[in-house]
């Protein structure tokens, strides 16, 4: 059967190697195809502004945005006119809120799942609070916490809390019953059951939630800054907006996208460290032509 497969292939494509090594595009699409897409998008952007002659106050050409970005990023981190200062503040708000919100979400998800009576009695309120648009709470934060750090951290924590909570609960539900049975057949203590079986089993789900929450954390911080702040990229964005400086606005928006990407990437790195087994097992289960 194997021989037949090789034969038919060699008939099709002449002197093909027996098992051709996948090309560089197939092996590293993130280093080859992804940058090409970026270039294509930039060219399309440039064409859209240059050929269609769009006014700069609607869509600025990419070179203007680049100039604004270089101008903003070339300043020192302590210069309040530069991007670094505001980016650091936004990231700090996002990271604090993410840490608090996701820690609470993970713990509460575990507690509500492990004690079903708590889970069942709290469930309607959780669903109710989750369907509430959290962004609508942002103005309230100014009333409660003023223009400082706390309000942004609070709104970020609320926004990141739910994806982690929901994923943790889904993860708990997905723990193979045989694993729990195995632990019980060995007279495992409740603590051992939690720490050695249930929590590790939940990790792939937890990291899925953390991945979503990491991107939302930047959103939370920016929304918090929109409604009232003295510093941060969201505040900067509002300032540029009011001054109709569209090019720097685009630069800040792109910077926010990069920050979101980086926080998500950081979560991915941690996941690869602690959840390698789930990824490896999944990768092994995939077919040969999907991966090298």
């Amino acid at each position, binding site marked *: 059967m194997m021989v037949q497969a090789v034969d038919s292939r060699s008939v099709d494509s002449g002197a093909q190697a027996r098992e051709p090594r996948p090309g560089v595009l197939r092996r590293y699409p993130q280093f080859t195809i992804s940058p090409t897409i970026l270039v294509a998008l930039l060219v399309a952007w440039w064409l859209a502004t240059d050929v269609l002659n769009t006014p700069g106050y609607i869509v600025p050409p990419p070179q203007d945005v680049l100039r604004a970005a270089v101008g903003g990023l070339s300043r020192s981190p302590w210069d309040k006119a530069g991007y670094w200062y505001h980016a650091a503040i936004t990231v700090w708000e996002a990271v604090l809120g993410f840490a608090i919100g996701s820690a609470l979400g993970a713990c509460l998800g575990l507690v509500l799942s492990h004690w079903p009576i708590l889970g069942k009695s709290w469930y309607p309120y959780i669903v109710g609070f989750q369907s509430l648009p959290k962004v609508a709470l942002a103005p309230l934060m100014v009333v409660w916490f003023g223009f400082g750090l706390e309000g942004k951290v609070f709104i970020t924590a609320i926004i990141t809390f739910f994806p982690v909570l929901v994923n943790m609960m889904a993860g708990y539900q997905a723990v193979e019953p045989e694993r729990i*049975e*195995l632990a019980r*057949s060995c*007279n495992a203590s409740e603590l*051992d059951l939690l720490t050695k079986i249930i929590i*590790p089993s939940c*990790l792939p789900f937890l990291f899925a939630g953390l991945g979503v929450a990491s991107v939302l954390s930047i959103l939370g911080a920016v929304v918090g800054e929109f409604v009232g702040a003295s510093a941060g990229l969201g505040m900067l964005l509002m300032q540029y907006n009011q001054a109709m400086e569209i090019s720097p606005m685009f630069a800040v928006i792109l910077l926010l996208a990069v920050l979101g990407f980086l926080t998500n990437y950081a979560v991915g790195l941690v996941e690869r460290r602690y959840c390698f*087994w789930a990824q*490896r*097992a999944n990768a092994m289960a995939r077919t040969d032509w999907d991966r090298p």
Partner: protein
Amino acid sequence: MKPMRAADSLDTSTNRAPALILARGLSKTYITASGEVTALKSLDFGEFVSVIGQSGCGKSTLLKVLAGLLPCTTGSVELGGKPLRGPTPEAAVVFQSPVLLPWRTLVDNVLLPIEFRKLPTASYRQSAADLLAMVGLTDFAQRYPFELSGGMQQRAALVRALVQDPRLLLMDEPFGALDAMTREQMNLELLRIWSQSRKTVIFITHSIAEAIFLSDRVIAMTARPGTIADVITIDLPRLRALSSINTERFGRYAAKLRSLLDAQGGMF
């Protein structure tokens, strides 16, 4: 009801050791939406068996009751003369799937029951290594389960059960998920391990050939409510090889068991 020991009444060979495990008038009733379902009814047996029956006849339920994982509705289980209350180190379970934890290396998986029982893992490392060597997994001790084939994973699960040195091994269709060839290899391996360690084994299966090949005695169960149809003593010489499947006596046992199970009217 008068408790009956299968060992006494059905085994004509002399001088059997006293029963290690004894189940009297056992029944397990699940409360379901459709009312009560009696999954098991009045099972009495002695010390070494393999249990065969149609799917849904309560084989797995029986095993879980014997492992102390499920309470029985009526009746009692005695292990080594003492009533069974919950899981005990005396009895180890091998499940249908290997249930290896993917974040632990093979040797750490094997030592998991030791950790759960708060025993010093250091003093069990040697026996874990010996057992892994016995099933030919020495080179894989530091590997993760996803790097192993299904048969290797199930052998590791067997080692994990043996590392606690239990007196009783409860096996719930442990090779059911393996392909036919691997399954035969695992049967041979299990016989080899059993002949070295001489554990008492209760082996749940739905394969007639597997039951006859492995066991001294086979309990055939009826379905719903699960109860004993018959107990057949398999009088084949020990140190069995796969060729013993082709002998005439093996065929007679198979025909007998098949007719017992067919009498239930199930699909086989």
